C-alpha cells in the first residue's frame, strides 16, 4: 500500500475541520475528491502533504510512518525519515506557485539539482523531455509571468514530475483557469493516469473525474460521506448531500 491515512483529524482552534478521515491508496490508483466548498478538501490535502500539522490520527507512506497518535498527541517522524517521505510525493497547487524569478527550464531543473543533487547533464536532459511532453519546448527560457494560466499549470506539473515522485496530489488544478485552458491541463493529467501515475485529485470537473478515476471520495463538513467507484458515487449517489451537490454543479 502506497498511502494509508487513519482517523485523520484537524482542528483550527475549537473548530474541527476534518473528522476521523480514512483513506487507502494503492499504487496506480487515481482518486478524485469531490465536495462543496469549505468541506475540508484542501485541508485534507495539506495534512497529507504535511504543509499543515494534523491534530489526530496517523499516516504512512510505503509503510513508513509519517505521523501517529500517541497518548492523544500527534507525533511526527524524525527529520531524516520525513525527508525521505517528502520525496515520495508532489503537490500541484490551484495557484501554480511557480518561482517567478526563474525561467521555465530553471523551475523544472532547480529542485532535482539542489535537493536531489542530480547530475546536471542528466537533469537537463530529463527536464527537456518533460518540456517536450507538456509541449512547451519553445518556452523553455520564458519566465512564468510570460505564460498563460494553462501553460503555468503544465509547467507546475512538470516541475513536480521532475522529482520522480511515487504519487501526486492536485488541489483544484484547473479552478483558476478559463474553460479553454482547463482542457489542456486535464488532458495532461489524463495522460499521467494512462501511465499509471498514482494521484489524488481535488476537482469540480465531474465528467473528468468520472472518466479518469478508479475511485471517488465525497466530502462534506469534514467527513467522507461517500466513497466508491465513479459509477457508484457520481451516477448513483446513495447520500442525499452528494445528490444535491451534483445537481447543483449540473445546473451551473
Amino acid at each position, binding site marked *: 500500500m502506497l498511502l494509508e491515512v487513519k482517523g485523520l483529524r484537524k482542528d483550527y482552534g475549537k473548530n474541527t475541520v476534518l473528522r476521523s478521515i480514512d483513506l487507502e491508496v494503492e499504487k496506480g490508483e487515481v482518486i478524485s475528491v469531490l465536495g462543496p466548498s469549505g468541506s475540508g478538501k484542501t485541508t485534507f490535502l495539506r495534512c497529507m502533504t504535511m504543509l499543515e500539522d494534523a491534530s489526530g490520527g496517523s499516516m504512512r507512506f510505503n509503510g513508513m510512518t509519517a505521523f501517529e497518535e500517541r497518548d492523544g498527541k500527534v507525533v511526527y517522524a524524525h527529520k531524516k525519515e520525513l525527508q525521505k517521505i*517528502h520525496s515520495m510525493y508532489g503537490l500541484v497547487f490551484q495557484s501554480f506557485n*511557480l518561482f517567478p524569478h526563474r525561467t521555465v527550464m530553471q523551475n523544472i531543473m532547480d529542485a532535482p539539482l539542489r535537493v536531489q543533487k542530480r547530475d546536471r547533464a542528466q537533469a537537463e536532459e530529463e527536464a527537456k523531455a518533460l518540456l517536450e511532453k507538456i509541449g512547451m519546448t519553445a518556452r523553455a527560457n520564458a519566465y512564468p509571468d510570460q505564460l498563460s494560466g494553462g501553460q503555468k499549470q503544465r509547467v507546475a506539473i512538470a516541475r513536480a514530475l521532475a522529482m520522480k515522485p511515487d504519487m501526486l496530489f492536485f488541489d483544484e488544478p484547473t479552478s483558476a483557469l478559463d474553460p479553454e485552458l482547463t482542457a489542456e491541463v486535464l488532458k495532461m493529467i489524463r495522460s499521467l493516469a494512462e501511465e499509471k501515475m498514482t494521484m489524488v485529485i481535488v476537482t469540480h470537473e465531474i465528467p473528468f473525474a468520472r472518466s479518469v478515476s478508479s475511485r471517488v471520495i465525497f466530502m462534506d463538513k469534514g467527513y467522507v460521506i461517500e466513497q466508491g467507484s465513479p459509477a457508484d458515487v457520481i451516477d448513483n449517489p446513495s447520500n442525499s448531500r452528494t445528490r444535491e451537490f451534483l445537481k447543483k454543479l449540473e445546473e451551473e
Partner: protein
Amino acid sequence: MLYKGDMMKMNKHLSGIVTALTMMLTAFGGTGVSAERTEFTVGFDAEFPPYGYRDDNGEYVGFDLSLAEEVANRRGWTLIKTPIDWDSKDMELETGAIDCIWNGFTIEGRENDYTWSVPYVDNSQVVVVKEDSGISSPSDLAGKVVAVQTDSSALAAFTGENATEENIALYESFASLTQIGDYNSAFLNLDSGAVDAVCLDVGVAKYEVEARDGFVILDVPVASEKYGIGFMKGNTELRDEVQETLFEMLDDGTFARIAEEWELSDNVCLSREETATEVSVSQTADKKKANIGEICLDLLPGIGSSLLIFVLTLLFSLPLGLLFALGNMSKIKPLHWIISLYISIMRGTPLMLQLLVVFFGPYFVFGIQTPAGYRFWAVIIGFVLNYSAYFAEIYRGGIQAVPKGQREAAKILGYSKFQTDLFIIFPQMIRVVLPSVTNEVITLVKDTSLAFAISYAEMFTLAKQTAASNTSVLPLFIAGGFYFIFNFVVALVMKQIEKKMALNK
C-alpha cells in the same frame, strides 16, 4: 549641451541670487548702516567660556557679552546676542547679520581681514593635557595627537601664514593635528584619550581646567596673542563708536570691575595708548582667498573620506541588515525582542547622537581608552549599526511581501529552510526592496556629512573648514556640487541594477 556663453549666464544668475540673498539677510538683520542705530548685534561662539557661552540657566553670558552690554547701554542701543557657527562667522559679518565679532577674537594673523578695535585682552595659546599624561612641555608632544578648534588662533599658531618656525617644527612632530568644532567635544576627546592634548586660549584653558577634573595647563605657552573686536572691513564708524565707549568705561573703572567679575584682571590690556590696527579698505589683498583649483585640492581628502564611509557602510550594513531582519522574524522570542528593540532605538534616535555614543561610549561608559585611529572606525560602526537597522526593516517588509505559496512550493519540493530563503525568498525579496534600498543609499550619501559630529574630516567638515579659512562660500558650493554629482551617479547605478533585476519583460 551647455556652451560657454550659457555657463557665464548661469554664473551671472548665481551671483545675482547671492546678492539678493545677502540683501535679504541684511534687511532681516535690521542692521543696515542707518544714521539712527538702535540695535547692536554681537556675534559670538556660544561655547567659548568665559568670553561668551551659555550658562546653566540657558542665558548667554561672558566677559565679552558683559562688555558689549555695557557699551550698548551707554550708547542707547539694544544689544542682540547672536550665537554663531564659528565656521560661518565671516559670512555672518559680510551679510550684515551681525555687526561685529566680539568673542575672544584673536587679532594676530587676521590683521587684514577685519576692521579691528584696539586689543583689550592679552591672551596666549597654551597646551592642556591630562594630569597623568607624562607630558610636561610642548616638546613632549612629538608623536602625539593634538586637537585645536576649527579656525582658531591655536590652529593659526601652527599652520597659519605667520606661524613661527618653532611652532611649525612642533606641528610637524605631532602624530596629527585634529580640528574639532567646539571646546566641549575637544575636552571629551581629551578625556577619552582620543586626543593627547588640546591647544587653546589661556583664558578658556583656565576656565575649563578649573571646571573639570584631571587636566593641567603646561607652563610654556605655544604663542602669545591679543584679542580685539572685529568689525566688517571698512566699518570704522561703528568701530570708533564702540571703542570710544570702551575707553570711557576704562576711565571710570567699569572695565576693570567687569574684568574682575570674570577673573580676567590678569589678562586685560585695554589702553588709550594702543592704536587700532588700521587697515585701509583698498588693501583688501585677498591673499588668503584660494582659487577653485586649490580649494578642490584642499577638499580632495574629504571626498576620499566620504566615499570610504559610503562604501564601507554599504558593504557591511547591506548583509548585516539581512541577518537582523531574520533575527527580528525569528521564532526564538528573546532574539526577536532584542533585535526589534535595537532596530527601534536605531530608527528612533538621531544618527548624530549614535555616532557620539559609539565614539565616546567605550571610555565614558566602560573606561576603555580608544586608540587614535578609533575616530574613523567609530564613524563606520555608527553608520553600519544605523543603516543595518533601516535595511533590516526594508528587508523584513520585502520578505513578507513574497507570497506564502512560494515557501510551500519549496517545502513540497524538498528544499531545506536555508535553501528556501537563499534561492527562493531572497531573490524575490531583493526585487521588491530595491526602490526602498535606493532611497536609503541616496540618503546615506548626504548622511556621510554627519561624521562631523565626532570631528571626522569628511567632505562637508573639510568644506566648512576651508570656507572658514578662505572666508569664502565657494568651498560649500563645491561640496554641494560634489554631493549632487555623487547622488546622480548613485541614482544612475541603482536604476541600472533595477533594470537588470526586472527580468526580460
